């Protein structure tokens, strides 16, 4: 590998000593990163896999060699735990409803900003994007007040138009929709920005040609814009799903996983097991989340490759 000349300028006569100098400099530049990376990323990834097949508990912290390998027991225990199953169901609910909702809102906003209006585009873009940069903890605190019943701003506003709002966070059948509503509010800005970049890559000539052929606005969107936007759409779908699969702060601050465990998420339950000192079990749970994320990612690559 070291003998390959990657230069494009050609005619570069380089003797061994200069190549050695280059290699040495490269390693000096690489070493700080590599050490930190090994310690804080690579090693924990491997260690986590090992822990997941052991009965490591908090008290084993001082005696790492006293733990027992128990095979796949942690995984079996997690998968047969009714609360873990409920957390998995809740997480699936959050992803399967929240992700499409976020995408639809984001796409509508992106199309409106891209094609619909001529002025103030930057202001709308800025405003819609604002929630993304804010701390989830802080907005969760604020939303807890907004969703209060009675007396919250949202139910008061609904009251003006004659609707009696539900007890959003207190009713097990409304608690998850509340969290999804907030997540959509906070996250659609990112998807919108990426969609806008994708839409700007659609050549205007194609739209003009389709318009000359008599295609209306909807038909142009359906048959010109959407096919060209497919890779972007797929990308946003997967990244949003990956983010939502790990949701944690929202239930932590707003509902503590309740009422009746209706909002406990996989990440939150994993965190709770960690808090109880069940490190092995928590590692196994985190690997299960990771497996789902890996599958979602693999599907994305598969679908992307099919196209191109």
């Amino acid at each position, binding site marked *: 590998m070291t003998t390959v000349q990657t230069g494009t300028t050609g005619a570069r006569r380089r003797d061994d000593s*200069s190549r050695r100098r*280059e290699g040495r400099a*490269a390693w000096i530049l690489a070493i700080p990163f590599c050490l930190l990376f090994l310690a804080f990323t690579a*090693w924990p990834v491997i260690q*986590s896999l090992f822990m997941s097949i052991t009965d490591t508990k908090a008290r084993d912290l001082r005696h790492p060699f006293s733990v027992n390998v128990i095979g796949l027991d942690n995984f079996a225990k997690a998968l047969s735990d009714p609360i873990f199953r409920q957390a998995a169901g809740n997480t699936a609910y959050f992803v399967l409803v929240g992700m499409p909702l976020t995408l639809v809102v984001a796409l509508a906003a992106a199309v409106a900003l891209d094609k619909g209006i001529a002025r103030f585009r930057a202001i709308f873009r800025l405003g819609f*994007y604002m929630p993304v940069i804010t701390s989830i903890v802080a907005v969760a605190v604020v939303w807890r007040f907004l969703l209060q019943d009675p007396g919250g701003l949202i139910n008061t506003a609904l009251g003006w138009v004659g609707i009696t709002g539900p007890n959003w966070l207190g009713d097990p059948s409304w608690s998850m929709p509340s969290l999804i509503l907030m997540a959509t509010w906070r996250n659609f800005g990112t998807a919108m920005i990426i969609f806008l970049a994708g839409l700007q890559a659609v050549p205007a000539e194609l739209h003009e040609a389709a318009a000359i052929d008599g295609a209306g606005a909807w038909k142009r969107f359906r048959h010109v814009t959407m096919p060209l936007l497919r890779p972007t759409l797929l990308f946003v779908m997967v990244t949003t799903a990956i983010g939502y699969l790990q949701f944690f702060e929202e239930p932590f601050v707003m509902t503590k996983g309740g009422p009746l465990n209706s909002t406990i998420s996989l990440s939150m339950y994993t965190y709770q097991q960690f808090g109880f000192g069940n490190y092995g079990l928590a590692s196994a749970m985190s690997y299960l989340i990771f497996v789902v994320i*890996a599958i979602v990612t693999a599907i994305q690559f598969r679908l992307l490759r099919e196209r191109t």
Partner: protein
Amino acid sequence: MSVDTAPRQTAPAPAPKARASRTGSGMVGASQGSRWWLYLVLVVALVAVIAPFVWMVLGSFKGEGELRQVPPTWLPQHASLDNYTQLFSKLNFGQFFTNSIVVAVVVTAGNLVFCSMLGYALAMLDFKGKKVIFVAVMGTLMIPGVVTFVPLFVLVANAGLIDTIPGLFLPFLVSPFGVFLMRQFILGLPRDLLDAGRVDGAGELRIFFRIILPLCGPALATLGILTFLGSWNNFLWPLVVAQSEDRYTLPVALALYSTGQNSTNYGLLLAGATVVIIPILVVFLIFQKRFIEGIATTGLK
């Protein structure tokens, strides 16, 4: 945990293939002037998106009684700074603010320095082990923080760094995403720079620090902003590492107060949320162009 400086990180977005010039696409946007209804919808949507922030800031100046009033008020009847004075005198938010700043600054500096160094080595230099490093780093790009969380805690605990400031920032000093971003950017720079530097007799490291790095401004700015933001909002790791109040970062303090004994002190919590959100909003408004470009090209939030 150590993988993402920004929580909920994502991989690079597929780059837009062609940037068609689209000014004056008259035919498509023919009826733009008459779309008043679309403006109306967008304005209503904008108000709905911004309203929670406005309500938060206004609420932070209200007293307890007014915040519990049904129906809720919009503008404060007796605006006061009481919540903020309490926040900083009784609850030590000054300390939490300092902690958040220190951690975010150190994490950002670490990422800028270490990721650009490795990014340059991977993009322009030849060396033994290059491929291995590249594959290992890129392979962890998509690994979620939850996977490394438990062993990372054990590691930091065994190093005696639980409840210390270094324990808060050490795991985040480098990120695969940072290397990816810097490498991509440096690949776009002309290699002639390197050769010219060598001809002039500059040492390898000098070429990087004096010639390449100054040209990386845009990439460094994007990485710096995103890293700072990720660190400022980071929650799970500081939640477990910071155990005494002196080490809390802002989100940790806010979350613990909002679920603990202060959970019914609305004014205080709204003021706390304002203190967490407003500084980052100001940074965002100053650098918003760079922010949005960064998102559009990387897909990272």
